[in-house]
């Protein structure tokens, strides 16, 4: 899926990256810019509702080929940040639970074991030991 146009700026000392906000969120874009700001001034210009242009102006002398490499690097970096966002969205709930358990007082957030105990004789007993252990009301 290639949502990026070719470089359009007539100014050869800058690179322009076209970003589709439907693919790469503003947050992913900002994170990418955060890192690239060491070597480039990153200027974000809104073109329309879905498209922004990122102008990368190098802070020190840069050749044309280096500039092109930087542009490509920006794109792949942005895609990685978009990927991170996706993963974070799917895992933030369980992460919160995990950290809550990690730092809770011992035993407070403990889970009961899942699954059956699996012994036919034991399960046939109405007041079997493991029934009692499993039953949270006891």
């Amino acid at each position, binding site marked *: 899926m290639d949502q990026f146009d070719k470089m359009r700026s007539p100014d050869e000392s800058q690179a322009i990256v076209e970003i589709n906000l439907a693919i790469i969120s503003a947050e992913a874009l900002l994170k990418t810019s*955060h890192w690239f700001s060491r070597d480039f001034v990153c200027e974000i210009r809104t073109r329309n509702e879905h498209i922004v242009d990122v102008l990368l102006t190098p802070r020190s002398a840069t050749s044309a080929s280096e500039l092109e490499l930087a542009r490509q690097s920006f794109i792949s970096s942005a895609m990685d*940040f978009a*990927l991170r966002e996706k*993963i974070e969205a*799917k*895992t933030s709930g*369980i992460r919160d639970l995990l950290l809550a358990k*990690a730092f809770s007082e011992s035993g407070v957030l403990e889970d009961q074991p899942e699954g059956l105990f699996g012994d036919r004789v034991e399960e046939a007993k109405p007041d079997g030991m493991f029934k009692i252990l499993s039953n949270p009301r006891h």
Partner: protein
Amino acid sequence: MARVFHPLERFAPAPTAFHLLPFRFTRLDGKELLVNEAGEYIFVPNGTVENLANEQVDTNSELYQDLRAKHFVYDDCSSPLLDILATKVRTKFDHISGGTKLHIFVVTLRCEHSCDYCQVSRQTASRGEFDMSTSTADRAISMMMDSPARDITLEIQGGEPLLAFDVIQYIIPRAKTVALQRGKNLDIVVCSNLACVTDDILKYFRDEGVKVSTSLDGPAFLHNKNRPRPGHNSYEKAIEGIERSRAILGIENVAALMTTTAASLDHVIEIVDEYVRREFHSIFLRPISPYGFALKTRHRTGYEMGRFLEFYRKGLAHVLKVNRSGYRIAEVYTQILLTKILTPHGSRYVDMQSPAGEAWNVLVYNYDGDVYASDESRMLAETNDRTFRLGNVHKDTRRTIFTHEPALRMFQTSCNQALAGCSDCAFQSYCAADPVYHYATQGDMYGYRATSGFCSRNMQVIRHLFSIIAEDDRETMRILWSWITGQSVHGEVVECA
């Protein structure tokens, strides 16, 4: 009822249904490196992260089984065992529990050396003025023992602490008494250049069970260049001091640390060889901290992180070579990071912790009673910046120190989980936060990762170590593990300073 055997399919998960557990990733050597919340890592083929995000990994594949076993995914066939994972996360943060373990007492600022990078003001050698008073010592000892930690390390520094030997003699028995009263285990280390050490001083240390740590920057030309003193014989004095100390204290109770300066950067092989020649079994290739006078004299001692990386890589390679030839010597920076990467544990080294060890795990008690978050914080104060001065032993208690502004401001920026640049970083579990460093070099505690020397150094060293891990050379891994466990490659326990 007869029992029947069932095939694998009955116990393995359905082809598509799985869920993600939290993880971070980066790209390394043509592969993807994933790290989960407990610091467990896995190398996977390029494209795996995208497949995971889109739930397109084949649950029958070996890759899926690996991801499942290492807590990157889970499925409906078996629980995510969150309690286990939580226990692992907790283990990684072990360094938080127990309170401050390292207490540094700066007993005097006097020193007869005048090292370029020194973060201590140069003072004349007259007694008293810059020495810790007995009342300050008493209060500092009391505050030290207020720490809930059961195992306390008292590190005596300076200036040159042996110039205030009487203060040391005052402190040690009192600290031991209070430790006994409070049920603490106390370890005592004196950090000295050993230039003025005598046999009497050493015998005293031996009798009190005190260890000695000294500086050895490398061979004579380097050491003397880094550490000017009247007579230009810092190296000779250091060697003499080391030999004397070993004779009286035992070789395992004398440690050496090096300081890296611009002059050191081209000579890592000679430095390692010097340590081997002097029969040390550990060497710490650490970068110079950019504090105090170092900032002022940067043009003489300043250097870029890139040169340090080269120094480290070359140094590590040489250290490994020495190990292969049969001489056991561990590189400490590597050992610290590998402990975080390869073992379930966190690090006890205060400079590489998140939440940052500063203030939390180390406190520095200056000669005048001022309490600082770290050695570097105190050095910053020498340039009249007291941002990290947490209080004073004569006015504060441990409680007030930890609940007042300076400490609280630090704690806000002490967790790399919550710092821009770090929060997504694959190496978050292995790296650390350092508000003091960022304040000193960038002007604010929060810091800007893209230009942070701390970030770039750690990231590159960690990357380098992961390349070594990925190579999985048997002999190299055996040597590295022997550093981590403290066992020799052949299984005997090794005592090393």
